[in-house]
């Protein structure tokens, strides 16, 4: 379960002054739900997810992630989440197996527990063939699978995906979407950020349209359609974030 309360993040920029990257965002996401964050580049999606994963400290506001307070219990929050982003790289000089084990160690997994979890994720994501290969030598799709393995290795109840399919081919993207869908069916609480309309439409139970750090609308796809009077998500999105622009 995630409850976000009026989360704000301001950055100080030499040229632009104070930048309101996230400005008073509130929502909640329940177990077994995929909550989509839909926004253009620079809308504030990544900053929001970085705050929810404790990488960034909010300027104000807070959130409850897996029953833990984001501000007061960041350590427990980190133990309860898996975070995957398209920009997150692997360590080039570690093999896929070493990388997964390293992450397991960071999460406190040791010995038989670690090996059991490693075996599970390696089998689940079919990493076995390149388990002993250096991450540097993996294809983009293979790297993405190793990243997924890293994300779920400690079996977290909450998962954050920040544009996980960017740069992937159709098959790899599909595999990831299927993977996320399976996690949903396992009852995980999932926040999925994307700027690809079709992904949000097909994968997310509810969509939060975010623009300039603020929430433009939240709801199921049908609700957003009804609210805007549009039929396609792209048109819905444009009419929400830029009402003056002709969606056609």
């Amino acid at each position: 379960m995630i409850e976000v309360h009026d989360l704000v993040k301001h950055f100080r920029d030499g040229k632009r002054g104070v930048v309101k990257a996230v400005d008073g965002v509130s929502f909640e996401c329940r177990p077994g739900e995929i909550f989509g964050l839909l926004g253009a580049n620079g809308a504030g999606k990544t900053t929001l997810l970085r705050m929810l994963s404790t990488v960034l400290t909010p300027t104000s506001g807070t959130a409850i992630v897996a029953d833990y307070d984001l501000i007061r219990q960041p350590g427990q929050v980190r133990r309860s989440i898996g975070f995957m982003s398209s920009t997150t790289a692997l360590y080039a000089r570690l093999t896929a197996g070493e990388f997964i084990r390293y992450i397991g160690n960071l999460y406190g997994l040791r010995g038989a527990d670690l090996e059991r979890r490693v075996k599970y994720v390696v089998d689940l994501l079919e990493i076995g063939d390149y388990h002993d290969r250096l991450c540097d030598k993996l294809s983009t799709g293979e790297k993405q699978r190793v990243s997924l393995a890293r994300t779920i290795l400690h079996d977290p109840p909450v998962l954050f995906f920040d544009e996980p399919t960017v740069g992937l081919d159709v098959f790899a993207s599909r595999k990831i979407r299927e993977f996320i869908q399976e996690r949903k069916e396992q009852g995980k609480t999932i926040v999925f950020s994307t700027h690809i309309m079709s992904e949000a439409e097909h994968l997310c139970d509810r969509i939060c349209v975010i623009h300039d750090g603020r929430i433009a609308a939240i709801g199921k796809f049908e609700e957003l359609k009804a609210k805007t009077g549009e039929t396609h998500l792209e048109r819905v999105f444009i009419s929400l974030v830029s009402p003056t622009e002709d969606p056609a």
Partner: protein
Amino acid sequence: MSGWFCVFRKEMREFTRDRRLFFSALLGPLFLEVMIILLFGYLDLSLSEEKSHKLLVINATEGAPVLDLLDMTHRFEIRNLSKNSNPDDALRNKKGRLVLQFPDGFARRYQAREAPEFYVIVDRSETTSMIALEAVRSVVETARTETVRARIRELDLDDKQFDPFVLRAREAEISQPFASEWLVGILPYLIVIWAFYGGFSIVGDLVAGEKERGSLETLLVAPISRPAIAFGKFTALASVSLVACISALAGVIVMALIRIPITERLFQHGLALSGLSVFALIVTVLPLVIFFAGTLLAVSTFARNQREVQGYLSLLSFVVLVPAVFSQFIGYTGVAGAKWIAFVPILNTATVIRDALLNRVDWFSLTVTASVGILLAAVGLFTAVRLFMKESVLMRV
């Protein structure tokens, strides 16, 4: 702080697979040290050998009395030049180290005991020319003394009455140096340099590189505190710097132990390093390594990317190089024993290392140097950790 060891172990594993590090921290210091010792051994041997100095002589028939004396020492190779040769040109063209020019009538005036003059043309820009001049002077001076004594005796006088005093030199019974003066001069510089440059090749990767690649986020979302991440990276970097120092020292020790002819004069007393000297080396080098590792990590954390790291490190190199270079020559200056040197970072460590290699330990200098080193190491580590905790620094790319 739990979890730092995981980070340390992972960094070390990556380092072992980084070929750059193999060269910069392991093979480089070892190879360079061996090369420097061989080079210095050769230089020392060349300068110390009773080698023949090539002398060019104009009007050799007149100079026979002098040339006979020089020839008897077997230290000179004498070659004649034609009477109208230009001695300056001969030296410029490196035909010899000195030109001896005897005027007409020199032999006759010598026989007549008229103290005739002859000229030595020397190239002051060439050390070998100056050394040859001293060798000729020494022969001439010995001949003069012997002649004076002989002539005094001819007068039935005791020649000892004409000596105002007699000077005899004795080597002080103090510590035996680890190596020759030359090597003791340059070794502290090299150890300090390797403490700094040992981790140079990987420091960019350590934080700035992770920012650039995006792998840092993986660490930041893991349940490990940021000070623990910084400490894990710091210990890995410090270990690499220490390995570079040890590797450099190992090169010296190996060369001292194997005792090949070319280096024999450099290590006349074998591996003569006292336990106290080893202790002094450890307590001063270790804080320096920690200080450097903390500083380098702080730079890598502060920088946006690897290119920026290289820019900062180029500037920082000068801060390290200047006192390190000065430390090589401190033995020739009047400040070698000054107390204030113990308070100057890097220079103080190099001075204590120099003393340790001379098998001397100045407790004041050692204590202050170690204390300054520990203080700086703490500041370096603290700065690195503080920067690592600053979101605005860590997240800027």
